[in-house]
């Protein structure tokens, strides 16, 4: 797919409007999160709890999935398993075409982006319309989401106003946000009533009860899951939780980490299709459980931690790299820190290994992650796997594929130099003596900074001089 992370990042950096949009949005979201977690001790405890719940869930993942399937079936929800994106799309397509469906309305679902569902359906003559306002904007612009929670965050309201003016018939330019949203809503309202199928994601799937939980703010999710006669939910297998009791802490972490809200405007719990006597709800409900590399991640005890993610997006909001280049520069479905961890594991290190380099390991992502995923450590782990020696045992596809001979040689030189004190001291002494001849241009470094100049004498040298002068053995050992 890409592997051009650096070029795309350079392009993004050169777009002042984009940089402004992201900087403003990220500052806003960081402040929102901070004001939602004022009690640091309580936050610490809640994060630890979130970590524990998800870790316990993962420890029993296969069992819980089975339990989820059983309870869903008992409730009348049909369950489908998909190992690959193609399988997931095919399952969904089959459900829609079995009833001659023409139009699907969609709630927000990153997993549906992951499997490329819209594209798949459109190629087969089925319109798949995004109903989340951000997703709708992005779809209208023929783009992909640039953030997992706020898909259109890369656009200013003026840009959206122009987009509506260009793409929607009979709409004049206005950058009044209420009017813009009103326009979108009007169009979507009509589509909800015409749609044959509603498609949604799932935030938590409860194994003990067979309940699908959906977190949203606009009400479009509820429309998608109640108005059309068929509801198809798609989710990754890691979204299962054991009990209903697990939900309140996770939900509280999710909404507060994502948008700083104490609770979202809507929280939908779907436990069955419409029952006799009920006035609304779909005739049939389907759950598609997607693997797409997740069971492989599950096998590595370190990388398994990736599966704790509840997709809140806080790691991107706090990432200094994401804040400057935005989501599209990553060229992947999931951007930012979690994207850097999840995408190479899904697509392979050969295709997505490069994006792991877009990280200064500053740790801001790990610090805010509500389920304590050690994102920097996992990024480092994937760097290790991508340039591993061919005899490595890494499970991740494409392991070792980005081992560059020149780079590997440079590190072996580094090892020789720093592994032998006498050589190190000799080389640093030379560097200090020749400091005026030290390179003035060092690649990308000096394009933006002056070159550092070695000191006249190294600390090693100064300390050994001192030891000699003092004639004591205390200073050198």
């Amino acid at each position, binding site marked *: 797919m890409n592997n051009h992370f*650096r070029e795309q*990042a*350079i392009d993004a*950096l050169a777009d002042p409007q984009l940089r402004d949009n992201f900087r403003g949005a990220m*500052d806003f979201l960081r402040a929102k999160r901070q004001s939602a977690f004022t009690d640091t001790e309580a936050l610490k405890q809640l994060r630890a709890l979130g970590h524990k719940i998800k870790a316990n869930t993962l420890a029993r993942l296969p069992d819980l999935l089975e339990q989820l399937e059983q309870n869903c079936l008992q409730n009348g929800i049909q369950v489908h398993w998909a190992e690959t994106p193609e399988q997931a799309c095919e399952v969904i397509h089959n459900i829609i075409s079995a009833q001659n469906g023409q139009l699907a309305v969609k709630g927000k679902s990153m997993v549906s982006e992951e499997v490329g569902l819209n594209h798949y359906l459109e190629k087969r003559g089925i319109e798949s319309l995004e109903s989340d306002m951000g997703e709708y904007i992005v779809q209208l612009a023929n783009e992909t989401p640039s953030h997992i929670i706020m898909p259109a965050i890369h656009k200013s309201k003026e840009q959206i106003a122009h987009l509506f003016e260009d793409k929607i018939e009979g709409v004049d330019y206005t950058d009044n946000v209420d009017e813009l949203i009103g326009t979108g809503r009007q169009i979507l309202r009509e589509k909800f009533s015409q749609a044959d199928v509603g498609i949604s994601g799932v935030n938590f799937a409860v194994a003990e009860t067979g309940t699908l939980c959906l977190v949203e703010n606009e009400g479009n999710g509820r429309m998608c899951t109640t108005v059309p006669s068929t509801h198809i939910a798609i989710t990754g297998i890691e979204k299962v939780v054991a009990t209903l009791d697990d939900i309140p802490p996770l939900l509280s972490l999710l909404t507060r980490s994502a948008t700083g809200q104490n609770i979202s405007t809507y929280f939908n719990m779907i436990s069955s299709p419409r029952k006799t006597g009920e006035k609304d709800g779909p005739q049939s409900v389907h759950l598609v459980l997607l693997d797409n590399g997740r069971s492989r991640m599950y096998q590595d005890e370190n990388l398994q931690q990736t599966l704790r993610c509840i997709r809140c997006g806080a790691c991107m909001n706090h990432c*200094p*790299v994401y*804040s*400057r*280049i935005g989501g599209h520069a990553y060229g992947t479905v999931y951007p930012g820190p979690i994207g850097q961890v999840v995408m190479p594991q899904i697509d392979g290190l050969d295709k997505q290994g490069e994006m792991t*380099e*877009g990280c*200064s*390991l*500053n*740790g*801001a992502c790990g*610090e805010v992650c509500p389920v304590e995923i050690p994102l920097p*450590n996992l990024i*480092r*782990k994937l*760097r*290790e*796997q*991508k*340039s*591993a020696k061919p005899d490595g045992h890494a499970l991740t596809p494409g392991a070792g594929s980005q081992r560059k001979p020149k780079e590997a040689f440079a*590190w072996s030189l*580094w*090892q020789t*130099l*720093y*592994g032998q*004190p006498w050589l*190190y*001291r000799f080389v*640093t002494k030379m*560097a200090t003596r020749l400091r005026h001849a030290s390179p003035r241009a*060092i*690649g*990308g*470094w*000096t394009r*933006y*900074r*002056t070159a*550092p*100049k*070695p*000191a006249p004498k*190294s*600390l*090693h040298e*100064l*300390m*050994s001089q001192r030891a000699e002068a003092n004639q004591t053995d*205390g*200073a*050198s*050992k």
Partner: protein
Amino acid sequence: MTTTANMSAKQQPSQVYFFGTCLIDLFYPEAGLSAIELLEREGIQVHYPQAQTCCGQPAFNSGYNDEAIAVAAKQIELLSDPIPVIVPSASCAAMMKHHYPTLFENHPMSSKANELASRVYELTEFLVRVLDISLTDKGTPVKIAMHTSCSARREMAVTEDGFSLIRQLKNVSIVEPERASECCGFGGTFAIKQPEISAAMAEDKCQAIHNTGASKMISGDCGCLMNLNGVMEKTNRGIKGEHLASFIIDRTRT
């Protein structure tokens, strides 16, 4: 005063190792000397093993673990006496304290690595929490901008220690730049591999420091200093960054 669990101000060690870090060694030796002077002034005997080189972090962060282990193992061997190891840079301290144990997991030297890790202190952490030192300011009034590194903030959690040291200097007023918790863009090899993104980060940081109106920038990490000083100099901003230890020594020397 905060003290670490296993070492209080009362049980002061009489000897420590000093691990100078490779950046200080070659580019900022005066920061190393200042740090050593600060320790010695408190009556501590400082050992500086001449065979020390680098903690291994550059290779480790790049995913070259074998190479990192080879170099780290040498440092573990030569810092073997059971006395504290003082590191005047939070990122190298974090490497030794937090990453050696994972790097050496399943390695024959695993227990030695863990043992060393338990003795590693970042300089300001040691000065404040173990030595509980007091400083007397002899300098003229100055306004400084504090830059705290990501490792100091997150991995080592010693940000407060740096501040509390500077706050003892009565003629120094501290200003914190906007978005103080955001990375300066150094990240070791990150600055080399992604120069454009790194520069964008460094540039914003320098602007924020400049905006404070401070005449000096102080940091406890030489990686950040090298990065930010490079940008400040290239853009003629007229502010220079200095290592916290040098700054303190200059203002407290008799």
